[in-house]
């Protein structure tokens, strides 16, 4: 990629992403191309991170482990649903992922948790997301009882209109009152520690970037 194109891309992305400055955008673009590797640019073929590559990044860099959540995060990034994260999607996604405001993060998280995309988080979805959250004890008669109870607890806490499922409004109201509930059904944002490490690593190596 030539310098001019890069410059142009950087400028346009700096405008679209609210939370990064130009330098940071440059860093992220460079990181993106590093991760994609030496793929020759061809017309018609989108350059990007496919599902596996992206999941790998999530796992290695941000310490995520849950398959399902990682898939959901990938979908969150892949706005155009073409199966891979382009450079624009990368920068925009990270903008919310790392620096998003509470509003942005709530929107993002809700999308992640709303598995079927119907605008509600249903009991079944919750159960699905929480089913591995408790250590199973062999002695228990019904191994899912705890999970069901957790779902009930969560509903009791978050379902403001008592319709048995979480709407966007329910979710946002509950999170506003208790920020800890933002990632109520599984970690889909970087934990603060790995976020710090990531930012420190990516944004504080200007020399490497200048070589490019």
């Amino acid at each position: 990629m030539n310098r001019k194109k890069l410059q142009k891309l950087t400028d346009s992305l700096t405008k679209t992403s609210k939370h990064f400055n130009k330098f940071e955008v440059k860093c992220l673009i460079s990181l993106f191309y590093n991760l994609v590797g030496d793929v020759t640019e061809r017309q018609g073929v989108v350059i990007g991170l496919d599902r596996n590559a992206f999941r790998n990044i999530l796992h290695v860099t941000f310490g995520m482990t849950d398959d399902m959540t990682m898939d959901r995060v990938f979908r969150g990034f892949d706005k155009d649903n073409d199966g891979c994260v382009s450079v624009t999607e990368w920068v925009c996604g990270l903008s919310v992922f790392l620096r998003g405001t509470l509003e942005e993060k709530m929107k993002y998280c809700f999308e992640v948790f709303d598995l079927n995309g119907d605008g509600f988080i249903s009991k079944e979805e919750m159960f699905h997301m929480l089913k591995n959250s408790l250590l199973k004890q062999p002695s228990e008669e019904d191994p899912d009882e705890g999970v069901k109870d957790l779902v009930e607890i969560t509903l009791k806490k978050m379902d403001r209109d008592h319709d048995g499922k979480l709407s966007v409004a329910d979710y946002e109201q509950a999170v506003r009152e208790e920020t800890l509930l933002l990632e109520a059904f599984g970690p889909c944002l970087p934990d603060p520690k790995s976020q710090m490490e990531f930012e420190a690593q990516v944004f504080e190596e200007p020399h490497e970037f200048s070589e490019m």
Partner: protein
Amino acid sequence: MAKSTKLTEAQACIEANRNPVAKILGLDYKVIDEISEDSSVLSILDKITKDDDPASETKMKIAMLLKQLDLHLLNHTLKHISLEIRLNPGTFKNDIELLKRFSGKGKQTVLEFIDYTSDYEFSNGCRAPPWRQLRGEICYVLVKPHDAEILCVTCSKGGVFLNGGKTDDEEEVNYERTGEIYKDLVTLLREKSAIFSENMSKQGFLHVRSCHLCTEKVRVSEGQQKEKDQPDETPRKTEDATLHKASTASHRSALESSRINLGKKQMTKRLEPSLNWKTTVDAKGKRSSVRDTQGGKHEGRLEKPRPSILPGIAQFRKSVQKVEDIISDSTSESEEDEEPSERRKEANADLPSEYWQIQKLVKYLKRGNQTATVIALCSMKDFKLAQETCQLAIRNVGGLEVLINLLETDEVKCQIGSLQILKEISHNPQIRRNIVELGGLPVMVNILDSPFKCLKCLAAETIANVAKFRRARRAVRRHGGITKLVALLDHEQNSTEPTYSSLYETKDVEVARCGALALWSCSKSNGNKEAIRKTGGIHLLAQLLKTSHENMLIPVVGTLQECASEENCRAAIKAERIIENLVKNLNSENEQLQEHCAMAIYQCAEDEETRHLMRRHGGLKPLASLLNETDNKERLAAVTGAIWKCSISKENATKFRKYKAIETLVGLLTDQPEEVLVNVVGALGECCQEQENRVIIRKCGGIQPLVKLLVGTNQALLVNVTKAVGACAVEPESMMIIDSLDAVRLLWSLLKSPHPEVKASAAWALCPCIQNAKDAGEMVRSFIGGLELVVSLLKSDNKEVLASVCAAITNIAKDQENLAIITDYGVVPLLSKIANTTDDKLRQHLAEAISRCCMWGRNREAFGEHRAVGLLVRYLKSNDANVHRATAQALYQLSEDADNCITMHENGAVKLLLDMIGSSDHDLQEAAAGCISNIRRLALAIDKARYPYNSNRHYKLPSITQHRTCHSHAQEP
């Protein structure tokens, strides 16, 4: 056995002598109740005040004397009476009422029924017909136990017994006694019915708790020390479903306490052999003797275990600190430490639904991954964590361990959730303890290093809650928490640190506030105060003090106030120019802030420079104006404390006069809690050092309330009151008032106080009184045993007491007759004995006392014989000019005796005295010269004796070997 013989003895005593008071004083003074001796005194008093007729007065006088004589005897018998005292109408009524409540059908009750035979109750509480009342019978009761026939019981003053019974067709009861006499109804019933006894003991354990309540109440009513109060009180207790057991217990404790009281009273009486100080018996004498009885009572009260020292206030705390210094910590923590660690074990009986829900949540905390954990934590936060049930439920299901464990993970969300819960539940003292025991503090201290401000804040706030007791505070320090907390205060530096955007962030100011909050709690330990200072905390607090957020200022000033009790910290506070800002905040609207500022000033104003700073920054006026707001007692105590300390500087006292503070202070002498009074009186005492202020106090009638406070029991208060009264006595006109209020006698009585500080202060106060009273000599003599008491105080081992008593003796000895009396009491050997002191203050007053005491008989020689002279000469080497003057005067007096001259000479006094002659102090000059001239004259006489051409051999003296040197020295000046 011994007890029962005592009982019969007492019984016999009472039966033979139904109304001792009435017998001794005649029917005129017969009182309804034999035991209410107080009221009998009162009735006599009433008589006295009503009758002005001289004839009845003499009668009364005799009566009074008889009464006093008998009082001792009476008190003794009272002890026995008090054992039997339960048997009066009130107690019976009470017992029966209680038993009634627990009677009825079914196995659980103690009786089937219990009732009176007669519904009519006489005005004296008896139900027996009048002719039977004469025999001491009170009422008749029909009792049906579960396992026996109906019993008809007679309750009389002598005890309880079965009577002939009541037949259905007859109205009359067969009054004849048919059974044994028991000491009370319950004992009788226990004997007669097995089920009663069994059920009673079953019920027993339920009442243990309510018994505690009763004893509490009894303690409150102890002051009244009238057993009669008991019936009035017990009905209240019955609400607690207290059966007889409780009332027995409370009775017993009341009896015990009253017995102790009586014993104490006797003790005090034995200490003062006569209640009359004055020998002349006139109307005034009577009044004062009455006052003395009151005084005696007060002294009795003094020995009661009553916390007269209040935490937080009072220099008492300081004195304690001085003694124990670093080992002990300040303030209320002792009370905190003694808190029962397990208060309500039995509450587990019926567990609330919260308990099970919390147990379930804790299970999820233990077994869940972080998602489940966060959900469980959030849900747990929805419980009412301020309630003890929830707090203890969390603990009892092992939640604390899990919560603390979560703090050690890397999961920020879990840490936050856990801390939020811990912060709330750590308001509970038991939970605090458990957190410390589980090692929660080191973990929280580590979190203070976290890059997340929100976590820092929560950890600091939780530490602030937990560090309310000593062990916790020490743990914070040991794990380096103080340094980290102090670092939190540095919010300017904090903001330069890189911040990581996170949803859980808070402002830097908030971090500093939480840091200050935690330091406030921690600063109650002395070790932590020092640690705060060493890590530069005072400087940072000074910076924060410049902000204007009340939320921030209160913990900051609170911390400063705590730290200010340490000398080093006060110096740092002064260096950081904090006083200025404290003054500024005195003008704040927030009462709590004002209070803490005033407290901090109170602590700091021990230092002279600080007092001047207070004036320079205009801090005295806001203090004076805050005096007018008396609703908030804590603040008032702090403000008056600050005024007290500030007024130690004369310029400040003058300022306070300008602001009309003295008048206001006098107004605060009545109806205020003790902690306020201590400070008010302290302030007046300091202000009184100035003549004009003394006049003001006299003019606004401040002396009467001051004198009234002399009969108090609070040690700190007494020290201040005596000082204030003493200061007032300097002015002759005030002295007249003091004399007319008989305050000198009260001061003199305080010499018997068990507290050395009070003794010393009282002795100091007596000095100006003796100086300024008319007929001081006569007055002093009129206090019987007074002079002996003063002299005996010379055996004290407290330097301040000794110095003050020496000063008092100096004043007493101005009267020849009194000097003669104290000489008889052996003042000379006692003074000589303490002469080897090195304390300059004591030396000065001792030398003055010696010089005064020389004026009688052969006291000069006696001082020599007791080896005081040589020791006195050493005083001349002291650096204190006052000691020099007093010593020179004493030596001058002593040098009238030839042997003393020799001793002085041998101890090298001449050289030292010669230097003194060069002093600019005229008295010193004169005394030194006089002394030298006496020594010189002696030397001349020896010369004459030596050489045969002079035949006047007046002096038979041992030879002075170096008389020539002495001679030549004396010639030099």
